[in-house]
């Protein structure tokens, strides 16, 4: 560390506050000059600690007080950020590899879109924290460790990465993940300790397996040492109160009884018209045979001259002649097209309306 060039920057001088732009340009200038250790006493300036790198590949170290939004936003691997005190929204936004420690609370949307690196928080984090965290297999899995709890709507649309919410000092809190957590979550894993309520339906809450416990044990030690709370290890590594949350697959999300099954099992038995109508709910096709016919042919022996034109022209071979010269139309074959009646020279076939009211 003795090689490191160190500089202190104050964000406010004699009542004159530096704008975010001026502060960030100054930091960038100093990074260019080879400074690697920054102590920044900010006055709410945004984006401190983000997307800088040392030309020789040395790590950049930031120690910050009172930053504004997005401290460590878009920060790269090789950046170490330590914030003393509580910070506003968007800590570690789009974190792309930095180690970020906040010794205090975080505002809303902490770790939003974090894609790699580690974010450690010694307090609580705000609404929508962990939203859209992601995992790119070419990079280290992002990790987001919070000692206390999150605000509501946390981990919305989460796509990957690991979040650990330790639920410390949360007595009386109904849900350590707030309300409506995990809405739209499609990937990643959340470990949390303590009660959870109102979680979205698209995820499953399951017990920890051995790998999970191993991960938490080793990770917890690093986390607690970073926030200087090693003494909590025993409390936090009692796995009885931990849950693991993973997204459900699409099929699991859309299971529903069919309307047909609903009718058959839950609807009024026998149908609401059952007092009036016997209806087995079978369906007639168009141009149906049998009872589905709109018309059916009737044979009149007196008129028949045995010309067999009906037999010859019936498109469905429905008409047959018995040995004693009776003509029959088969209900199973006849669709009631009335060709027989049309071709009959003597009206021996007439069409009878099969249409009738239900009784």
């Amino acid at each position, binding site marked *: 560390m003795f090689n490191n060039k160190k500089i202190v920057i104050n964000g406010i001088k004699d009542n004159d506050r530096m704008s975010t732009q001026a502060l960030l340009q100054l930091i960038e200038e100093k990074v260019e000059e080879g400074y690697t250790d920054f102590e920044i006493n900010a006055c709410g300036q945004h984006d401190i600690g983000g997307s800088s790198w040392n030309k020789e590949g040395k790590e950049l170290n930031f120690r910050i007080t009172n930053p504004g939004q997005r401290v460590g936003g878009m920060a790269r691997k090789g950046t170490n950020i330590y914030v003393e005190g509580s910070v506003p929204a968007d800590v570690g936004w789009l974190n792309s590899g930095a180690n970020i420690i906040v010794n205090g609370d975080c505002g809303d949307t902490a770790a939003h879109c974090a894609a790699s690196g580690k974010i450690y928080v010694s307090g609580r984090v705000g609404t929508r924290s962990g939203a859209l965290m992601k995992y790119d297999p070419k990079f280290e899995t992002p990790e987001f460790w919070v000692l206390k709890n999150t605000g509501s709507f946390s981990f919305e649309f989460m796509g990957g990465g690991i979040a650990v919410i330790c639920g410390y000092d949360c007595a009386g809190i109904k849900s350590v993940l707030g309300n409506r957590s995990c809405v739209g979550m499609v990937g990643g894993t959340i470990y949390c300790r303590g009660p959870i309520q109102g979680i979205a339906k698209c995820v499953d809450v399951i017990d920890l397996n051995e790998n999970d416990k191993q991960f938490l044990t080793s990770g917890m030690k690093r986390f607690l040492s970073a926030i200087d709370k090693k003494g909590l290890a025993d409390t936090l590594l009692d796995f009885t109160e931990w849950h693991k949350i993973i997204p459900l697959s699409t099929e699991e999300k859309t299971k529903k009884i069919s309307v047909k099954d*609903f009718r058959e099992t*839950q609807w009024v038995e026998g149908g609401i018209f059952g007092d009036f*109508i016997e209806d087995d709910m079978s369906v007639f096709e168009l*141009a149906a045979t049998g009872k589905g016919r709109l018309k059916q042919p009737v044979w009149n022996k007196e008129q028949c001259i045995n010309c067999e034109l009906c037999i010859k*022209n019936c498109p469905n071979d429905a008409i047959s002649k018995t040995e004693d010269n009776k003509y029959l139309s088969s209900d199973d074959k006849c669709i009631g097209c*009335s*060709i027989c009646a049309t071709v009959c020279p003597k009206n021996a076939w007439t069409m009878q309306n099969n*249409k009738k009211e239900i009784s």
Partner: protein
Amino acid sequence: MTKVTINQLHKDDLPWIIEYDESKCIKCGRCSATCSFGAIKPAIEQRVKSGSISEKNKLEKVIVIKQEIGFANHCRGCGMCERVCPNGAIRAVRNTDDRYSIRYRSETAESVKKGGRSNLNTEGRTLDKIKVGRISQMTDPSLDALRHTFELKTPFGRVLSADKLGLNNENGKMIETKTLPPNRWIYPIIMGDMSIGAVSWRMWEAMAIATAYLNEVCGIPIRMCTGEGGIPSRLLKSKYVKYMILQIASGHFGWNRIIDAMPDMVEDPAGILIKIGQGAKPGDGGMLMANKVAKYVQEIRGVPKADLLSPPTHQGLYSIEESVQKMFLSMNAAFNFRVPVAIKVAASVTSVSVYNNLLRDPYNIVGGFFLDGLAAGTGAAHEISLNHTGHTITSKLRDCYKAAVKQGRQGEIPIFAGGGLGQTGSFAADAFKLICLGANGVFSGRLLLQIAGCVGNDTERCNACNTGLCPAGIASQDVCLTKRLDIDKVAQNLVNYILATDLELRKLMAPTGCSSLPIGRSDALITVDKNVADRLDIQYVC
């Protein structure tokens, strides 16, 4: 040869002409077997046998399919023949030179009757000229239609202003000091209101099943209005009656059975709708032709098999005040003032006065105002009513809403708008826009039939609901036809359509930043039509 005289009815008088290609026809008879109107039949035609022209009388007989020429059995263009033909040999073609309505009137001395919908030109439909133009992007973030929570619920029932709620602050604790008119929170879409008789028992039950399923399985608190044809006791006595809005119209059909069932009812109905008028034929009563008055319809309605023409008004109602006294009071009393009672009227130039009258009703017992526009459909009507009477829904809804705003009473009597919604393809958009213009919700009937397989449309296709010969088994009481309808498929399709509409409504609520219904949020709408902008008081854009 048959004699042909000029005064006979001819094929070219009819609205649809059967186009038939004998060379493709295999004489399978499927088309004539399927046609519910009897509009086509097999026939014998003569053809010249191929051969020498010097020989005489060399004709042969062939079977063909021929169009019937008549008022009762003319082709309605339903297209079933085309559906069943294996070879594409037959189809119905619109006759643009038809003289049907002239011929019909001059031959029968009757007015033309039909079912279906009004045939106003749908081009330039007001709702289609309106877009949702206020998109939240930055300061008020858009929401995610699929994943965020939205509340698609609206009050149904009389709402009182806050100072009349009977809520008192007693040492920091709120207490209620009086009973208020009933009020329910329901989905902003109401299915209905089509009567048993007008539609087949399968169609009606499918709607009821879909309603129950949407409530019980999908958590969508949609309600169905029964129409005025009575309700089967089995439904009245089941728990599902809580999703039903019971209708009473001038015929009062089926109400004796409802009264009879009361001691056995395990749930209150969702509401009662007093139908005064309907958009398709304003000023006209219900009409059910005898051929649809099946035995069970006779029983439920308490009538013989005859044309059932309900009077245009409720006998004994001479004024709005009277209707409040008689109908509303009685209907409220029927369920001991636990069930919201609403009124349905056809949109009219006078709708605002009616609405104002109801708003001023001192008894506060009018729980909803259903306003039905002229593009609505019906099971049967005189064509003259269907095509030439009525009032468009959009501006009239807006007028009623603004009349309420003027008095600071918007929302006190929830307005439900209907009539031709989804006509040009998007029900959700129509519903959303009407809600922004001041509706609490919408209702739709005809669209449900189309979902179920009805092939009728705005340009005179089919529209034969009045005949009882509905080829889809929807507007029929005939066994063979009704059984064409697959009850499970229809119910499933209805459910799916509502689910899709629900998603689409959220797709409009989300970008406008609304997590609850945007009732009266006309600031979200824009139009490129200056007249529409001026009339509806929304932003004109170009």
